[in-house]
């Protein structure tokens, strides 16, 4: 199976490909200007999108190609950090500066497992690095997890395989972070 990772130029984007490869997938970084056609040619079974240094409120124009792509695609999608916030905006929610930015270890509490958080227990320690966050959840989404300072740590579309996570499952310090990728891979298999 092939799951490319959109390189949004964040620090851990390359680590996402490593996490997927370590789980037996084929994966590589693809650029922000990747198109639906490119992905079809590569036979992408799913798409993961990384984080990046862009501020979601003032720099989202830099992500306009990715925004249209997210609307067009029908394969399972997982947005991490900045692209989690981008998904929220695309589907009618709001994102912007967090009152309390989170860096390093944060306890994340699971509200609803859905498929993506299966096997992660009631709470776990996740590693974060964000100045912005999802402020208003889009209408067709539900919250799957929160932290003390950030309401939307994980969200899922109510009837499509589209997920957003604010923390970084790809870094080794996030407890069982690879479970999230395992669960995502299962969804791509379907």
């Amino acid at each position, binding site marked *: 199976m092939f799951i490319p990772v959109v390189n949004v130029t964040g620090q851990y984007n390359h680590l996402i490909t490593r996490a997927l490869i370590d789980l037996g997938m084929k994966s590589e970084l693809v650029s922000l200007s990747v198109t639906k056609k490119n992905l079809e040619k590569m036979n992408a079974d799913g798409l993961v999108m990384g984080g990046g240094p862009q501020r979601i409120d003032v720099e989202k124009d830099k992500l306009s190609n990715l925004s249209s792509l997210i609307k067009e695609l029908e394969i399972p999608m997982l947005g991490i950090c900045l692209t989690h916030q981008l998904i929220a905006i695309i589907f009618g929610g709001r994102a912007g500066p967090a009152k309390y930015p989170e860096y*390093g270890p944060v306890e994340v509490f699971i509200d609803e497992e859905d498929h993506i958080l299966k096997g992660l227990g009631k709470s776990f320690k996740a590693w974060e690095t964000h100045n912005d966050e999802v402020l208003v959840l889009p209408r067709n989404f539900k919250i799957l997890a929160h932290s003390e300072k950030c309401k939307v740590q994980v969200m899922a579309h109510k009837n499509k395989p589209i997920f957003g996570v604010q923390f970084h499952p790809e870094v080794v310090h996030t407890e069982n972070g690879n479970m999230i990728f395992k669960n995502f891979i299962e969804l791509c298999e379907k």
Partner: protein
Amino acid sequence: MDVKKFVDEQCKKIKEIVGSEKALIAVSGGVDSTTCAVLTHKAIGDNLKCIFIDTGFMRLGEPEKVKSFYDGLNLPFKIIDAKKVFIDSQNSLVDAEDKRKVFRQNFYDTLSNAAKSEGCKFLVQGTIAPDWIETKGGIKTQHNVLDQIGINPVEKFGFKVIEPLAYLYKDQVREVAKYLNIHVDVSQRQPFPGPGLLVRVVGQVTQEKLDTEKIASKIVDENLEGSQYFAAIIDDEEEKSKNSIVEITSKFFKIKPRMIKVKVPKNLVTGVKGDLRAYKKLGLISIKKDSNLFLPDLKQLEDLQVEIISQNPEFTRVAYNIVEKPRKGKYIILIRSIMTRDFMTAEVTRILWDKLTSTANKIMEECKNVSQVYFDVTPKPPATIEYE
């Protein structure tokens, strides 16, 4: 990862690129450059020339140690003494990025000369994933990254660059090193930054400050533990703008504000927040309780650090005092110890206070110009592992 496949593929690739030409590699004695040297030697034999640049920012005894190790490996090896150029050119610099960029210039000038005199058309580098990721992302300039940020090495320095390990992380490099039978002292060695102690002498470099750092560094090296642990030095000069660290600390520990002393050095330190470089302030906290040094649980200090940094955006690190009797002195020593797999994220090592305070006391004994010693309680992010 499939290590055998990786080694076979890279050897083949190196052979194809270099052909019968000669290649140069700058080695530091660390796991990345050593693995890269052994791998390349496997591919092109003695057409690989290894040089060790003594920049003057090495730890005590380092050049000798590396030489004896390379003699054992039977690789063509030479030491270039460039101490004067490297140290003199740092003379009046204070800003961390200025220091790193001048170091990079000196580094490639030295390599360019060496490549010419050795007749090498290729430069092999042990660059690994975090190096180009951090440089490209503008977090900090690693000394060994050129191509990825648009510097053309052929035009500028007269050689082509080959980087066989560019997509690996430290733990994967260690696997390759093990497969290549590199001695465990090197394959498991803790990383030492390319610019060496330069990035652990925070702010302006002077000979006295560098010499003090070398002694503190040796003491920490011999007494502590972690994936990486070291000492850094910073000027004991305070800046006086307002922050809410005393209030937050007082509330956190339910201790009267007058028992808490917060110092903010003038020198800034490097961090990373939300994928952006954060060259910001360091908060130094001391607490007395019943007139003794207060040593709370490290986990609590980490939680306190979270509160301080999330409410004071101009800060990127917090460190905690570990000496009973501070005194007047020119410098402060910072002890850092972290645990990590790949150096992209890191947690603070839970070291017992006894071990930390006895190490701090040794530093106070041997370095008379040091006023105080602090232990860094900041993970990565929001701090980077090194201070600059």
